[in-house]
């Protein structure tokens, strides 16, 4: 991406942060909180998710059979099934249905699939008037805009904006103002459209193949009306909506509304087997026509889906139930909405899979980088789709399709990877940050002075898109590994514990935040462990986050090869950086052979540092009194945190406020840190914001600096809130620490720096 287009992206995002952002943020956060509460209330929520996913996996595997089955069933019921190859094919069919019905008007309920094929334009071209009946979708239609959210299409509009839109368009005697008045007005207007319509068009949330039944889920009741009022009903659904039977709907009925809106169930969940038996109300003639006159068409859209089915990495996208939970749970989405974080049709984390699958890879390129891989959506998704992985894969494919640009030669010297020549320089730079770090440490402190020089920051911004407003990491002359090699072990003679531990020298702990590595070694030694810090390659998180899968795989292979040797000799592995731990636990399975014994031998024995301390203390009676509690008062955060933490002396420790890392939460590791700190006597408060906003390199990029800071604003609010304002900010992730440093005046520290033994 050129610096030009990076500026354009930044400008577009800046604009949306001001316009759509505030409305999206309020609603997406509310929906997300609703989802969290509604799913927490379900006893066997995880089992439900597994059941739902299993149904989808089987259905997609058997899709061709299900298509045959549903065709037979619908035809036996008296309807027709049409499998449309692409958008044009689907539109042509819908046009022909309307022509056969002599249709002047069509009423529609909200459907993303019909957005995908742009059927409204196709029908308008054929002289048919189309009315959206979902109120949000109607607003979007009036405004001639695109949906900003797959569930709440007009989420980006405030009540005031909607009121002016309606008042301008309809000029009512009394200008509309309240939500109730606007709703009543539009209901009446659309009610008339429904009564006079010749064709009703709906989507389908699910289609049960064996009976030809379809599930329609709405709160307004418009889909019910569109399906049963006009004589002709056309349902347009992606072919992936097929499941075998009505019984298979069960987990979805339980999950969908909870995931989407935090409701236990939506107002209306219809299970219709069209053509339905409801008599046809003819409001003009004031008579009911017999249901036998009903005409029903099920259009199943392929448009790339059958190819996605064959695509190992994109296939999961087809399990998507379009609930929008990945959007609502996403910190970046909350700030910018679907007009930035979305393609031609779909928005949010899963949109990358959809857009790439239906032929919109270019559209995916526009917004794909807004996924930072934080993985919060993985827990939010009711069918457990690995959305970050889909984003990574598509990023990798886009990288490989790119052309070489102006600064390539300059950056190539710094980086050596397996990636294509046209790879975006920003991506190549951040993806090879291990080499940058090695040089940085070797040349420190000169490298740090140079990096901060104005002209160099200018070059970095122009060529690499590294935002000048960010402080750069300060490289340590003596790396963590060098420090470890140059000292004599201080393992205390503790007989009750005989653990041998590899502390993994991740990139940042080794070159930048060396103090947390040292604190880890001292802590583990105090608890009786024998600790080594061997040379191990960096995890590959950096290249992976830039979509450089091949490079990341090289890293993964090297890391597992080294660590598995230690594990074979009886070592446990302790990881300081949570994003690297997540890499081992989640992404390595994707990069390496998931059956690999070496990998599972390593992951079985790998722990986050505070998780490991927790295990030593609670299960192996390690001498916890050797660690530092609030009353022991060893002091300050030191150079690791770059300043003085507000750590106090005995009796007056202000407590800590802990911000857990996104991936740490996904891996359920927040609790261990809190438990250890509390056992040592710290008063612990925690934050509950989705994400700090930094997300590795994301916050450094000129295109995204402002989104990153806007996301961080919520964290700043919590860290500086009453009751937290005097607490020591504590975070485990490098990115979180960097972001907190730029958000608030207090210097944050890693939890292991708080607890490390004082006698060092």
């Amino acid at each position, binding site marked *: 991406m050129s610096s030009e287009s990076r500026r354009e992206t930044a400008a577009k995002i800046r604009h949306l942060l001001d316009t759509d952002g505030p409305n999206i943020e309020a609603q997406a956060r509310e929906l997300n909180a609703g989802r969290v509460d509604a799913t927490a209330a379900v006893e066997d929520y995880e089992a439900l998710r597994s059941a739902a996913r299993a149904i989808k996996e089987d259905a997609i595997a058997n899709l061709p059979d299900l298509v045959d089955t549903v065709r037979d069933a619908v035809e036996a019921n008296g309807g027709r099934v049409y499998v449309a190859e692409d958008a044009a094919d689907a539109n042509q069919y819908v046009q022909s249905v309307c022509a056969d019905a002599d249709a002047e008007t069509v009423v529609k309920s909200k459907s993303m699939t019909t957005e995908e094929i742009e059927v409204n334009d196709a029908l308008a071209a054929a002289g048919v008037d189309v009315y959206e009946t979902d109120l949000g979708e109607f607003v979007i239609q009036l405004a001639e805009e695109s949906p900003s959210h797959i569930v709440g299409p007009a989420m980006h509009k405030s009540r005031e904006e909607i009121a002016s839109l309606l008042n301008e368009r309809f000029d009512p005697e009394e200008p509309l103002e309240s939500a109730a008045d606007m709703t009543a007005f539009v209901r009446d207007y659309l009610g008339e459209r429904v009564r006079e319509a010749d064709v009703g068009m709906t989507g389908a949330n699910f289609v049960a193949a064996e009976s030809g039944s379809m599930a329609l889920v709405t709160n307004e009741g418009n889909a019910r009306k569109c399906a049963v009022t006009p004589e002709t009903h056309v349902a347009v659904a992606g072919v992936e909506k097929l499941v075998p039977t009505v019984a298979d709907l*069960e987990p979805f009925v339980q999950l969908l509304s909870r995931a989407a809106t935090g409701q236990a169930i939506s107002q209306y969940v219809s299970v219709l087997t069209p053509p339905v038996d*409801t008599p046809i109300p003819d409001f003009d003639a004031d008579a009911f026509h017999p249901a036998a006159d009903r005409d029903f068409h099920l259009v199943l859209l392929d448009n790339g889906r059958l190819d996605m089915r064959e695509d190992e990495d994109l296939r999961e996208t087809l399990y998507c139930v379009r609930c929008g939970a990945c959007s609502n749970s996403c910190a970046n989405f909350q700030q910018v909405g679907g007009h930035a974080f979305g393609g031609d049709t779909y928005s949010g984390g899963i949109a990358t899979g959809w857009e790439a699958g239906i032929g919109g890879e270019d559209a995916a390129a526009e917004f794909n980088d807004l996924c930072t891989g934080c993985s919060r959506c993985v827990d939010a998704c009711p069918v457990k789709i690995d959305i970050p992985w889909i984003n990574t894969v598509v990023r990798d494919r886009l990288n490989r399709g790119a052309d070489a640009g102006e600064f390539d030669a300059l950056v190539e010297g710094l980086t050596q990877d397996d990636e294509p020549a046209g790879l975006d320089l920003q991506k190549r730079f951040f993806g090879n940050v291990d080499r940058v770090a090695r040089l940085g440490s070797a040349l420190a402190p000169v490298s740090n002075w140079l990096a901060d020089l104005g002209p160099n920051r200018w070059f970095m911004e122009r060529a690499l898109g590294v935002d000048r407003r960010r402080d750069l990491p300060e490289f340590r002359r003596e790396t963590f590994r060098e420090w470890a090699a140059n000292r004599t072990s201080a393992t205390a003679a503790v007989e009750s514990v005989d653990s041998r531990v590899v502390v993994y020298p991740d990139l940042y702990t080794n070159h930048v935040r060396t103090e947390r590595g040292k604190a880890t070694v001292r802590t583990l030694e105090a608890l009786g462990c024998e600790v080594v810090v061997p040379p191990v390659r960096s995890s590959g998180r950096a290249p992976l986050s830039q979509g450089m899968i091949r490079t990341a795989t090289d890293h993964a292979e090297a890391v597992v090869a080294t660590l598995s040797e230690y594990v074979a000799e009886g070592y446990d592995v302790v990881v300081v950086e949570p994003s690297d731990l997540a890499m081992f636990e989640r992404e390595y399975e994707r990069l390496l052979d998931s059956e690999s014994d070496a990998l599972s031998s390593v992951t079985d024995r790998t722990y986050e540092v505070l998780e490991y301390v927790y295990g030593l203390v609670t299960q192996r009676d390690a001498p916890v009194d050797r660690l530092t509690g609030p009353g022991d008062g060893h002091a300050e955060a030191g150079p690791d945190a770059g300043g003085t933490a507000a750590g106090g002396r005995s009796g007056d420790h202000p407590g800590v406020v802990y911000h857990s890392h996104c991936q740490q939460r996904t891996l359920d590791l927040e609790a261990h840190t809190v438990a250890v700190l509390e056992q040592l006597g710290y008063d612990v408060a925690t934050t509950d914001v989705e994400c700090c906003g930094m997300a590795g390199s994301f916050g450094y990029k000129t295109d995204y600096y402002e989104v990153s800071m806007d996301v961080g604003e919520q964290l700043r609010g919590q860290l500086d809130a009453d009751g937290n304002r005097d607490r020591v900010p504590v975070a485990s992730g490098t990115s979180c620490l960097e972001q907190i440093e730029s958000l608030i005046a207090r210097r944050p520290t890693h939890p292991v720096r708080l607890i490390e033994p004082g006698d060092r």
Partner: protein
Amino acid sequence: MSESTRDHLDAFRDALDEAGVTHETVHGDGATAAVDRAVEEPAVGVPIDVVDGVELPAGVATDFAPTDLRSARTGVTRAALGVAETGSVLVESSERADELVSLYPERHVAVVRAADVVPDVPAATAWLAAEVDAGRESYVFATGASATADMGALVEGVHGPSHVHVVVVDEGADASEPGAQRAREVTEA
């Protein structure tokens, strides 16, 4: 009536409260009067023969045209099931036009047998799946009033009814039973 059915019934009434649905529990012979109390005329309806001999009150038209449907203030239907977990009623979409009657007027009055209240969505879905297997069947789980938040705040009463009332016909009910009493208070409030 078994103990568990009784528990479901209490849970059902709580869930109706939660969903903003008013309700009244009556003996079979009191159903017609209970419907009559809940109806605002003009009203249209479909037969509510959930229990032998239960008929629609005189003010509810069963023979109606589309314009009557449009101008009716209340639509009365039976419900095949009540779902205790969610406060939903399962309304059939049949040749009797119950889908339209439960959808077009601003008030929907649903009559359900206490014995037809099931504990949760899985039980209801299992029942529904068996119905569908048995033939061409269409139903809607309706839970509370139709609603939208698309206009900037939550508003009830969009394309469907703005008010829902459920009459539970409990052949084993004790009139002094606290649940029934509470329901009556809600209705009158």
